[in-house]
């Protein structure tokens, strides 16, 4: 049944995925020919990534779709996996665009592949942190969700503040999610991000399969 579910998921987000690819291509050509740096492209495309992803979730009725799947002969685990496979598709397109931009328009950029990878892994990390916040909705007492979302917002605020001024933010290619500077640089960040991402995905899975799809 996982195959059928994946086909349905692709079917459901087809339009938005195409739109996303189109937007990223247009941005790539536009910024490339106007001579922007790779860092600027990474920052701009990341913003578009978030807008498109949130737009897709709202327009295609993410919550409703999950409720529908709760009636079909698929497990919550399958739904969880299919959703994240789609997210990986979105991120893969983004990373491909970054790489292409680097090769085509800014081959001398001082942003290394490691830095790009570290930046890319930040995206699902932030996404899973937000998703956990939403999925906690089903958990009682209700203040857990607010406590979590409040803490998350606070930590992100600190992280973003650390990245100011804006020029520095662009240079680093987007938003950092760690509130404290990590001593070991890029390699250390990635080494921390990968297990953290996997851990958070496990937590999200645990919450997702234990939550109600209808709130009374």
């Amino acid at each position, binding site marked *: 049944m996982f195959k059928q579910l994946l086909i349905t998921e692709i079917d459901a987000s087809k339009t938005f995925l195409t739109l996303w690819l189109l937007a990223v291509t247009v941005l790539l050509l536009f910024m490339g020919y106007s001579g922007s740096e790779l860092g600027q492209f990474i920052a701009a495309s990341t913003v578009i990534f978030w807008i498109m992803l949130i737009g897709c979730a709202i327009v295609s009725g993410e919550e409703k779709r999950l409720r529908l799947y709760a009636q079909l002969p*698929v497990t919550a685990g399958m739904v969880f996996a299919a959703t994240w496979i789609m997210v990986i598709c979105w991120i893969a397109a983004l990373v491909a665009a970054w790489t292409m931009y680097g090769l085509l328009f800014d081959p001398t950029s001082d942003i290394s592949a490691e830095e790009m990878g570290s930046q890319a892994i930040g995206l699902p990390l932030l996404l899973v942190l937000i998703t956990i916040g939403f999925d906690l909705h089903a958990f009682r007492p209700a203040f857990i969700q607010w406590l979590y979302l409040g803490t998350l917002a606070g930590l992100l605020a600190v992280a973003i503040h650390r990245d100011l001024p804006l020029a520095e933010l662009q240079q680093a290619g987007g938003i950092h999610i760690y509130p404290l500077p990590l001593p070991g640089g890029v390699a250390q960040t990635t080494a921390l991000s990968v297990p953290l991402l996997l851990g958070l995905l496990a937590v999200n899975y645990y919450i997702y399969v234990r939550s*109600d799809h209808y709130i009374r």
Partner: protein
Amino acid sequence: MLRVNELRRHYRKFDLGPLSLKVEPGCAMGLVGANGAGKTTLFRCIMGSVRSQHGEVWVGEQEATAIDPGWRQDIGYVGDATPLFDGWTGARNLGALSRFYPNWSAERATAMAERLNLDLTQRVRHYSTGQRSKLAIVLALSHAPKLLLLDEPTAGLDALSQDVFLELLFDAMAVEGTALLYATHHISEIAQLVDRLAFIHEGRLVREEIKEDLTQAWRQISFRHEGELNDIPHVVASRQQSPYFELVSDDADATLDYLRQQGISGCESSRMTMERIAIEILKRSA
């Protein structure tokens, strides 16, 4: 076909269960209860879209667990607000969801949509409540399910479509031996369909009856009698405007026997509609 054992779900202001229920294959059970009695929560607990905290659900020979949801292939579910792909046409919704059911018959789906007079070329976003209900009905019935869970399935349906819907249910029961659990506030709608009625109140099953027992036993009885009459057996409601008496009895034979022993003759007894009986029972359980 459906077995619910000691199902329990606790909420801050509401408790479902402990609730046990059994629907035999080919049997149609009506589920009756006031708003907020827990009917919809019960359906969602059975489907697993709301997690129960205790108890088990069996569909046929399979336990309804979240680990192996194969049992959901045997179920057709029409909820009060079936989630659908709003941006897609009715036909595309059917196409996408047919993938999940090996028994799906596209011909059956089209034939049913036609009988219900449902335009499948329109986007679901533009559907009315009635049209959404129709699509949900087609979705629930196209894979010849062994068990139909119907939670107020006729929301917004016109009288004609409601009749067609009942015909589809009768056909499914006769041809496939489908079992039904059907919750509704409009008891007259299921009066001819169901074999049994389950009454739910504050999350618990308060009564379960064979429909024929109810329609045979319950009677409205009226007679003339000078003087007082107290403790008439099996009377659930009474009105008196001397010398006229008007009773509702849940065992008319026993009540009439008693009245005869009291020397009262000329009792008029008339049968009651299923709806009337159900309302009296609900009144008493409240």
